[in-house]
């Protein structure tokens, strides 16, 4: 039974060779050599015809069995080789994910822009729309119609930068607005109640600059006029605002204040988000952070724009955005905002 032995030798030799095949090419070569049309086993099967009947049947069965064994071995080996190749390829192409990315140009929005956007969003969600107005204003809108006539001592509250423009009568009526409040008058002039508006914009004061004072600053004015608007509404609206900006659990405190164009006038403080009222560096040890001035729109201001001041009431407020940003980000010098040191800008990346 030399033929049988031959089949067994072929099978064992092929299995040994298969164990050595470690890549696709070797596998392919092995397959052609062993199982191909001119392969060793095929040759055995082809030569069966020359064998006697009885031997042919035995050798044929043995050869077919050997073929099945080799086929299965091949499939298993191929899967293993493929897996190994994949593993090696993965290893070759492994990247260091901790390396910096290929940089895209880094743009960013100014921290004041972002603070303002958050503040405006808070009021938008309460039904306020956003309007803007002129930075160069008439005395009439900035002062007179807000009940601050010429020669009124309240003008001392607003150190003013005047535009060098003199009327024939010797008056100098043009100025850089000292607050966004003139927009109260401008908005009410062009529409009827109900009104809910916030007005962001640059304002200017004739003031020396230091860590807490800038002569140019960004203010947001708020105005709500309707039947039944009250001081309690002001308190609730600003409390909701404070919660959105400084955290849900914030509380607000009102105290008495004087602004000629509101009555009653208040200042609003929010409990310190850093120490929760016990006193710290952020709040200057008081537990409260002074945030803004506000009040009920003076009925004479309403009457001046032609509103029925018996029927309509309103509240107004004005806040400095720099102050909100200083508090939120723990910035200790207001002059950082407009000196534009790129190292400062880069501390607030993105949009």
């Amino acid at each position, binding site marked *: 039974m030399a033929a049988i032995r031959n089949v067994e030798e072929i099978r064992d030799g092929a299995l040994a060779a298969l164990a050595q095949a470690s890549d696709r090419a070797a596998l392919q070569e092995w397959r052609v050599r062993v199982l191909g049309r001119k392969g060793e086993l095929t040759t055995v099967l082809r030569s069966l015809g020359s064998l006697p009947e009885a031997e042919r049947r035995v050798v044929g069965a043995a050869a077919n069995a050997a073929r099945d064994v080799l086929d299965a071995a091949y499939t298993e080996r191929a899967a293993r080789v493929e897996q190994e190749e994949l593993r090696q390829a993965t290893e070759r192409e492994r990247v260091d994910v901790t390396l910096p990315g290929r940089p895209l140009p880094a743009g*960013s929005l100014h921290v004041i822009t972002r603070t303002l956007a958050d503040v405006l969003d808070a009021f938008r969600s309460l039904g306020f729309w956003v309007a803007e107005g002129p930075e160069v204003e008439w005395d009439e809108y900035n002062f007179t119609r807000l009940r601050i006539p010429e020669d009124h001592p309240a003008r001392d509250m607003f150190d003013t930068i005047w535009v060098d423009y003199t009327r024939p009568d010797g008056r100098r009526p043009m100025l850089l607005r000292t607050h966004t409040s003139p927009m109260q008058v401008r908005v009410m002039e*062009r529409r009827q109640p109900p009104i809910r508006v916030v007005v962001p914009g640059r304002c*200017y004061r004739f003031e020396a600059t230091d860590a807490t004072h800038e002569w140019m600053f960004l203010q947001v004015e708020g105005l709500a006029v309707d039947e039944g608007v009250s001081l309690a509404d002001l308190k609730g609206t600003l409390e909701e605002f404070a919660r959105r900006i400084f955290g849900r659990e914030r509380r607000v405190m009102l105290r008495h204040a004087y602004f000629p164009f509101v009555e009653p006038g208040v200042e609003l403080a929010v409990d310190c988000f850093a120490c929760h009222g016990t006193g710290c560096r952020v709040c200057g040890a008081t537990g409260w952070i002074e945030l803004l001035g506000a009040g009920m729109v003076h009925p004479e201001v309403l009457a001046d724009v032609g509103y029925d001041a018996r029927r309509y009431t309103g509240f107004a407020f004005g806040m400095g955005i720099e102050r909100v940003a200083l508090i939120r980000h723990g910035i200790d010098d207001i002059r950082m905002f407009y000196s534009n040191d790129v190292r400062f800008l880069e501390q607030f990346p993105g949009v």
Partner: protein
Amino acid sequence: MRVSLRWLEEYARLVLPPEALAQRLTVSSAEVESVERLGGWGPEVQVARVLRVEPHPNADRLRLVTVDLGGEDRPRVVCGAPNVAEGQKVVFGRVGARIVDGHTGKPAVLKSTSIRGVVSAGMVLSERELGISDEHEGIVVLPQDAPVGAPLDEYAGDVIFEVYVAPNRPDMASVLGVARELAALTGQPLREPPSAIVPSGAARTGRVTVRIADADLCFRYVGVLVEGVRVGPSPDWMQRRLQSAGMRPINNVVDITNYVMLELGQPLHAFDRRQLRSGSVVIRRSRAGEAIRTLDGTDRVLANGTLLICDGDRPVAVAGVMGGEDTEVSPDTTDVFLESATFAPSSVRRTGAALRLRTEASRRFERGLPPELAMAGARRAAHLLVELAGGVVREPVEDACPQPRAPVRLGVSLARVERVLGIPVGRDESAEVLERLGFTVEAADEGVLRLTVPYWRPDVRIEDDVAEEIVRMVGYDRLPSQTLAGRVPAPDEDPVRDLRERLRLRFAAAGLREVMTYSLQSTDGWTAAGDTGDLTPLRVANPVSSEHEYLRLSLAPGLLRTLAPVLRLRRARVGLFECGRRYLPRRDELPDERETVCGVLAGERPDRWGSPSGESLDFSDARGVVEQVLSGLVDGLDLEAAELPGLLPGQAARIRAGADVIGRIGRVDPRVAGKFDIAVPVYLVEVDVADALAARAGPGAYRPLSRFPAVRQDVALVVARDLAAGELRRAILETPLVVSARVFDVYEGAPLPHGKKSVAFALELQAPDRTLSEDEAQRALRRMIERLRRQFGAELRGG
């Protein structure tokens, strides 16, 4: 206003500690800006009397001082002060006292020492050692009324409130006014100071009559003649109180006028009666050229119409601002004519501004004083002149008051108060808090309070003022936090703002950092960028500094100034932008405030690591920004080469959207950049938001996508060097079937002839209704090239 709590205590019991009082005032009345404590020296620091001063046996400049502390103990200590003398009241520190070291200025504890062989168990102290000033030349000499042996804290300790006085509250510029508020807030009674006077007999020196000639500027003038005063120092307690308020004692007569001003808020002036020669005081406006020498020794020429106090026709005081030198009280004055008047606030304010002279008196008049206070002040001051300077008040008390006012009465509807506050406050509670504040509640009908407003509250004129009085008394804590009811109004549209905000985001997304620069620039600043043509900016009359004098016409200078230091820090690409306004002047109108977004780019393109690659940014980077920020926002975006001020010719263009110019782009002229210390190429991109809005693209209409495949074909065309690629591209796109044409290369040089360039386009040809055959596409291209040859002399490269 500086308010001493010791002084305040005379009018109202202080039932809370100082910090709590300050808090109450701040929340409900007027902000206490600071609380300053005088004292805290401890029991070892006492008032002492100097018994003996003897020479030191071993030192010429030192002396041995024995002091009396009121008990058995009479310590003898070494003292180097030149001003020590027997009989003085001084401050003595025992061993163990906490003081400030006179030499180092640091806190120290007093020890027993031996100085040049003499043991010194204690010290006579200087102001510096007490920590109240830097004065260390001599020891503190106390007034003679200081009680020997008393701890200094007891005698001189005090708390000073710095109270902010709002322009509408003249009453708060007085100690009594602050006391009145505190009494009301804490439910204590107010003790008013005595002001009884008993005028007796006619004046020896003759009556002084008063006539108000300009009643529109002087509402009341009270004159009191006090004869037989002895001018001398005022009592120690008065001097201390004046000092606590920051005023310098002068003599008893002047001190009394100042004291009453601080106490009641009514400024007064004392004339020497004998210097009022005519016996007739006239209050009138000045005539042209009139002048006066004021108390401070300055000769002042008065603007026409300045309100004056005149002796006959001679000006003797600038009403409400300052008295004249001629008639001032001197050490030998014996008869005083006391003025207590009410002047029009605006007149005093204008005069003060014109003379650049604002005094304690003028500040008070500016707030508008009630005429009633003039009489109260006159009586109080006359009372003190009698008590403290030995004078006699003569009959009659002159009182010119051309138009006496009735007290202000108000009917206050509780419904209105509720409307304003948002909460009801009951009739009885409202009445109670108002009465505490000095209002008289005459009747409380159904829902209406009938009130008389106290004369010292000129700020309360309408119902809403009373609502404020009520809420500040009942406390703001009582207000609930409500949200607005009612319908949400339809917003006003502001498309310029909306577009500006989109551009702001897109500039940031295009890799530029937002900066914010000042709206005001220096002279050099606005001309330096050279980009504003013939425009002249608005100037401000009182700039905060010469750096900030002109309202900007361009954002470029601010950006270039900001960019320069960044380029010194790093070489790789830097892009900065600002959204802001340019202020274009208009004759006799407010300027046109143009919303503008402007960006600058400079530096080298970064490599894979973000390091500078050595390859500078160029015009295409700037154009890339324009394409990215404006695509989809405006229709027909295109650049049109142009010569523009401040930009380098040949690298400058207008940004167009169809027929509209909406901005500019270009390389900043290197000479301009040089002025900002920038040596590398800088590119500028600017969009005028309102102009861009005019060219705003619509929402965009959908075009059906072709179902048929496109034929792609690259062609390189050789054309004249100065033919704009954009023009060539427009012509290509006019070719039937060509649906897109993208430039992908531009080449100049050999083997192309001089003056020629090759522009390569990637084309797509497509038919909407069928699959294009290769033949059809090639025919279309041949026709296109033929047309371009005729139109531009274009040749197919390599063709």
